[in-house]
């Protein structure tokens, strides 16, 4: 009887420890998720402040400017409906180009500028980052729908 109690207590403690560990792990997991937002969503203030997230879209034609230090770059990411200015310090990936798809990870500043910690590289010329493609597609759909409702109102 006594040894059974002991075993029960042991199993109970084990389960409790496991539960706490699982809770901590899932909590850590939750806080490490990096969400993806389109420029339209950011303009609509759906993106979080003071937390890292990803933005994707196309690099707007003629928007890439180098700052005086030569290492800091300013460019605009657009999903063709809205756009977001991005600031990045460092070397851009080989296949970064105006008019091409891009994904950046970082935080949005109070000034509305996206401060990128990382600009994601693509591996070959034909490939468009899926997030970037998704952003452009969503913006197009949204525009079509708004046009439809406009026409319906007419």
């Amino acid at each position, binding site marked *: 009887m006594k040894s059974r109690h002991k075993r029960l207590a042991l199993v109970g403690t084990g389960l409790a420890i496991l539960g706490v560990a699982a809770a901590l*792990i899932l909590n*850590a*997991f939750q806080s*490490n*998720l*990096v*969400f*993806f937002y389109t420029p339209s969503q950011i303009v609509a203030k759906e993106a979080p402040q003071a937390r*890292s997230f*990803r933005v994707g879209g196309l690099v707007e034609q003629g928007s890439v400017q*180098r700052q005086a*230090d*030569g*290492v800091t770059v300013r460019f605009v990411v657009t999903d063709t409906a809205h756009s977001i200015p991005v600031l990045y*310090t*460092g*070397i*851009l990936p*080989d*296949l970064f180009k105006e008019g091409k798809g891009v994904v950046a990870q970082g935080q949005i500043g109070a000034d509305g500028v996206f401060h990128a910690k990382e600009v994601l*590289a*693509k*591996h*070959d*010329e034909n*490939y468009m*980052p*899926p*997030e970037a493609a*998704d952003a452009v597609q969503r913006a197009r759909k949204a525009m079509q729908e708004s046009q439809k409702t406009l026409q319906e109102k007419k």
Partner: protein
Amino acid sequence: MIPEIGHFALIVALCISIVQALVPLIGTYRKDGAWMAVARPAAQGQFVFVAIAFGCLAWSFVGNDFSVLNVASNSNSSLPVQYRFAATWGSHEGSLLLWVLMLTVWMLAVTVFSRHLPREMLARILSVMALISVGFLLFLLFTSNPFERLLPAAPDGRDLNPLLQDPGMVIHPPMLYMGYVGFSVAFAFSVAALLGGKLDAAWARWSRPWTTVAWAFLTVGICLGSGWAYYVLGWGGWWFWDPVENASFMPWLVGTALVHSLAVTEKRGGFKIWTVLLAIIAFSLSLLGTFLVRSGVLTSVHAFATDPARGIFILAFLAIVVGSSLALFAWRAPKVGLGGTFNLVSREAALLTNNVLLMAAAAVVLLGTLYPLFLDALGLGKLSVGTPWFEIMFPICMAPAVFLMGIGPIMRWKEAQLPDLASRLKWAFGVALVTGLLVPVVMGKWTWLISLGLFLAAWIVAAGFVNLYEQVARLRASGGSLPGRMRTLPRGYWGMLVAHFGVGVFIVGVTMVKGYETEKDVRMNVGDTVLVGGYQFQLEGLTQVQGPNYEATRGRIRVSRNGSEVTVLQPEKRFYSVQQMPMTEAAISPGLTRDLYVSLGEPVGEGAWVVRLYHKPFVDWIWGGGFLMALGGVIAITDRRYRLARREQSQPAAAAATA
């Protein structure tokens, strides 16, 4: 003509594999020796035909046959010949053909080295491997035929992705696949044991070397991939927790657990069910890796296919293999038996804890890799799991396991005494503690993680030496010189020591790079000097260079320290004309205690360039540690007892033959 021969050879191989999958297996139920005996020649025949197919494809690549779609899409006549050969597995179709080739190579190895196996066992093992082979051959022939013709033929090919035009690329995929596919042998052994309902120490002794070899190959493959990323991608990272990397890392973690669990099954007859389950999981994760990487679910340099039929095929195959083997496991595992009992403080318990921790680490990686894919597939939004998740959780799982690595090997089986262990290891603990505290002081920067990493690395190595000292001292009674005594220690033991030292070396590398690296992106004009990590980097000049299939700007950067020249680095910015793709070719000066890493960014006007300058202390230890681990595995399989078992088995057979 050659491609058609290759195609035909694949079809023949498929037919053979179907026979090999069915006939011997049915033979084991009918207890028919002749049916079971089909397995061996069938496996060898299958190897021959797959090898012919592979040879034909390689021939088409090397011979620039642009009437083959695969060649036209992935090669070019100006591509150097070694890369034309490597391009054979540089495409989706070719890499799958390589996968199947590796599988048949393993089958061939089983037929050659397992003459001592009971014939039912051998029949079952080769049948199971043939079933896997049927799946992959069907996949190749129906969705990814590497020999598809392009009519009219292209005048020239579209060239190989420049990122893949690298010597590392020539050996990385074969090594990795040898590892991936090698777990199919462990898997087949386990399924065979479940089918036969017999799992004993002899079974563990047979399947152990196969698992170890596969694990060693996978280790080397991952190291090469990591090294490739380090010097080819041009930004000096060696591990990104990218889903593609994780896909190869998960089978490695489970494979490592399997190697250790097999040790208990062999020596103590314990952990039987657990070992079988681990073998199934390890191979399932290898298949999952193939699915993730090859189905187009992930976009990366590895993902060629975007054809959804392919993804669905692999997913269905994965479901069948995992589902049926787990069902078999649930049905037959109770027959296999549990094995002996052991105390809470014992080598078994230490190895069990190690297994649990390794599995926890694999679960962490699995969660972080699959969760975003699930959400995306269900249309619940796009997200990714940040690197911090892996970089926090992984060490939390592994640090206790690494600490146990120092204790486990000197523990007794069944029951050990804590005070005894403490007194034997107190010196090792002291050495580790001093290292962990002193080195950061000398280096001039301290964080918890640096101290912990160095402590653990020194702990493994010091405890390893204590272990070795005790073993040699134990043999003193038998007399003999020190080298003589060392030679009498079994190879399996040496392999363990070397592999564990490898872990220590690896941890030193990771800790030093993470703790003390310097990375600088700067604007440099010709003549400018920048100081990084105590080294002076001076940009001396830029020249234009013409390569075989690219043009490049080459920088000349002179590196000196305290006025004396160290080296001259020549990084390049290449432009591959066929693929219209720029590429950064970093220049690296490797060293035992540091790498100097330079790559060109882009021109920023007035002759100036953005240049990336890195000082990476001890970075080569990361791969050195990995190779040591693999070397440990190789040493371990040369152990006498594996050969001895074979001789014992073959002698009665030979006697029977002469009688």
